[in-house]
C-alpha cells in the first residue's frame, strides 16, 4: 500500500491568529517601552526642551523691547509665537519619533538576532510593523497631551480652538506619518544603517514645512516643494485648529491633501514592505547586519 504525505504547516492562519499576533507584538513593544525608565524623561522633558531651543532663540530675536516681535506678528499674523512654534516642532517630533521607532522596528530585530526566527513563525509579517504602531500611537497621544499641558502651565499657551478639530487633524495625519514609517522600515531591512535617511526625511520636514516660520517666507521653489510634503498641511491645519475657531470647512484645504497623501503613503509603505522583504529573503540579507 502506498501512503502519501502532504506537508502541512503547523500554523493555522486566520483572522483571529493575525489579531493575536498583532496584540502580542504590541504587548512586547509596550513592555520594552516601559522597561527603560528614561521613557519618563522622554515623555516629559522632550516636549519641553526641543521647542524651547527655538522659543528661546525667538525670544532673543524679539529683543528686550519686543521690537523684533512686532515684525514677526506683522509677518505671520500670529500673536502667540510660542504656540506657533510648539505646533510646528510637535509635528516634527511626531514624524521623527515614528521614523526611529517604527522605521527601525525591523532593523532592531535584525540587530537583536530575532528577525529570522520571527520570520519563521506562521504570522502575517506585516503585523510585526503594525504591532509597533499601537503602543507608538498611545505614547504619541500622551506626548501631545503633555506638551499642551506643560506649555499651558509654564508659558500660559492657550489652545483657543476646538479640541475636536485638533483631534481630527491628528487622526487625518496618522496614515501619512505611519505610512512613511512603514516604507522606511522596509527600506532599512535592505540598506541597514539608515540613520542618514532619517536625517534626510526629518530634515526636509524641518526646512520646508515651516515648523518655526510661515512657509510664505521661503523662496518660490521651496514653497513649491513644501506642497508635496503632508507635514506642511498638518502644521498649517493644526495651527488653525489650535488657535482659531476654524471648523471642518476651513480645515478642508489641509485635510483633503493630508488624507490623499495618507492613502498614497500607506500603499507605498505596504507594497515597499512586500517587495523589499521578499528581496531581502532572496538575497539572504534578512538576518545580516
Amino acid at each position, binding site marked *: 500500500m502506498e501512503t502519501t504525505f502532504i506537508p502541512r504547516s503547523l500554523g493555522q492562519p486566520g483572522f483571529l491568529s493575525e489579531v493575536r499576533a498583532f496584540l502580542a507584538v504590541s504587548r512586547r513593544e509596550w513592555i520594552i517601552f516601559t522597561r527603560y525608565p528614561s521613557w519618563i524623561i522622554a515623555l516629559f522633558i*522632550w516636549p519641553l526642551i526641543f521647542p524651547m531651543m527655538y522659543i528661546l532663540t525667538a525670544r532673543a530675536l524679539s529683543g528686550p523691547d519686543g521690537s523684533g516681535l512686532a515684525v514677526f506678528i506683522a509677518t505671520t499674523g500670529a500673536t502667540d509665537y510660542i504656540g506657533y512654534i510648539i505646533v510646528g516642532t510637535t509635528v516634527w517630533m511626531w514624524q521623527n519619533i515614528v521614523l526611529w521607532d517604527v522605521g527601525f522596528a525591523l532593523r532592531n530585530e535584525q540587530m537583536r538576532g530575532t528577525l529570522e526566527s520571527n520570520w519563521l513563525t506562521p504570522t502575517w509579517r506585516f503585523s510585526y510593523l503594525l504591532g509597533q504602531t499601537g503602543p507608538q500611537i498611545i505614547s504619541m497621544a500622551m506626548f501631545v497631551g503633555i506638551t499642551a499641558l506643560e506649555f499651558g502651565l509654564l508659558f500660559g499657551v492657550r489652545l483657543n480652538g476646538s479640541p475636536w478639530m485638533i483631534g481630527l487633524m491628528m487622526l487625518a495625519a496618522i496614515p501619512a506619518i505611519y505610512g512613511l514609517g512603514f516604507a522606511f522600515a522596509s527600506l532599512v531591512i535592505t540598506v541597514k544603517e539608515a540613520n542618514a535617511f532619517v536625517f534626510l526625511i526629518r530634515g526636509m520636514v524641518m526646512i520646508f514645512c515651516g515648523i518655526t516660520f510661515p512657509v510664505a517666507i521661503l523662496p518660490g521653489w521651496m514653497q513649491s516643494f513644501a506642497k508635496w510634503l503632508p507635514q506642511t498641511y498638518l502644521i498649517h491645519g493644526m495651527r488653525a485648529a489650535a488657535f482659531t475657531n476654524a471648523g471642518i470647512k476651513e480645515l478642508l484645504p489641509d485635510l483633503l491633501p493630508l488624507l490623499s497623501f495618507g492613502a498614497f503613503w500607506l500603499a507605498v509603505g505596504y507594497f515597499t514592505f512586500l517587495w523589499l522583504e521578499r528581496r531581502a529573503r532572496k538575497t539572504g540579507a534578512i538576518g545580516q547586519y
Partner: protein
Amino acid sequence: MQLSTLSQPSLKTYLRALFVIARKDWKVFWRYPLNALSSVFQPIIWITPVYFMGKAFSTNGQAAGFAAYSGTGDYMSYILVGTVLSNFIMTVFWGMGYALKNDMDAGVLESNWLTPIPRLLILVGRTLTSILTTTITSATMLILASLLFGFKPTGSTFAALLTAIPMLVGLYGFGFAFAGIVLLMREANTLVDVGSFLVQGFSGTNFPIQSLPYWLIPISLMLPLTYGLDAVRGLLLKTNTLLPISTEIAILLFSMFVMLWIGAQIFHRVERKVRTLGTLGQH
C-alpha cells in the same frame, strides 16, 4: 610563587591601545559614508529653521532685537559659531556615553572591560576619531553655511581657537560622568539627547543667555561652557561678553581641572557599583 599579570602596561602600550580604538572607530565611521555626509548637512538642517525664523523677526536683513542683547545683528554668524562648538559638545557626549551603549548592545563591553587598559583611556579613545571627523565635517559645514547664510568673523580666529581648547578638554569631565550614568541606566539615546540639549541650551549655543527668563540665567552662569561660548564669540565676532574675556578664560581653565576630576570620580564610583551589581553586560 609570585603572581604577575601577563600585561605589561606602559605609556607605549596605552598609546597603542588609543591608536587601535581610534583606528577601529575610523573604519566604522567611513564604512557608512552616508552617515559621514549627513554629519555635514545635519547641523545646516538644524539651523535652517532658525535662519528663516530670524527673517520673520528682521527688517532689511537686520535683527535689531537680537543686536540689543548680543551686540551684533548678524545672528547667523552668532549661531554658526555656536553650532560648530556644539558639534564638539555633542561629540564628547555621544563619543563616550553612546559608545558604551553600542558596546553593551554588541555584547563586547565586558570583554573590553577585561583588557588591561584603564577604563577612562577606553572612553577617551572612543572620542579621538569622532573629534577628528567632527573637525573635518564642521569645517565643511562652515564653508557650506557661509555660502548659504553668510559667515562674517570680524575678530581673531587664532585667539578664539586657543580659547576653545580648555573648554573642550573640560567637556571630557562631563563626558566621563555621563558615561557612568549610561552604564547605570543602560539606555543612552534619551540621556544623551536630553543632556546635550539642556547643556547646549543653557550655555547659549543659539542665543545670548541675557535673553533667557531671569530665573534660568543662574543655571547658565553655573555652566563653564557658557563662558567658553561667550569668550569665543567675543574674540571671533566682537560680541558683548558677560564678563571681561580674560576673566572668562580664567574660569575656563579652572573649571577644566575641576570638571575632569569630578567626572572621573563619578565614573569610577558608578562603574564599581555596576560591577558589584553584576549588571555591566546587561542592556
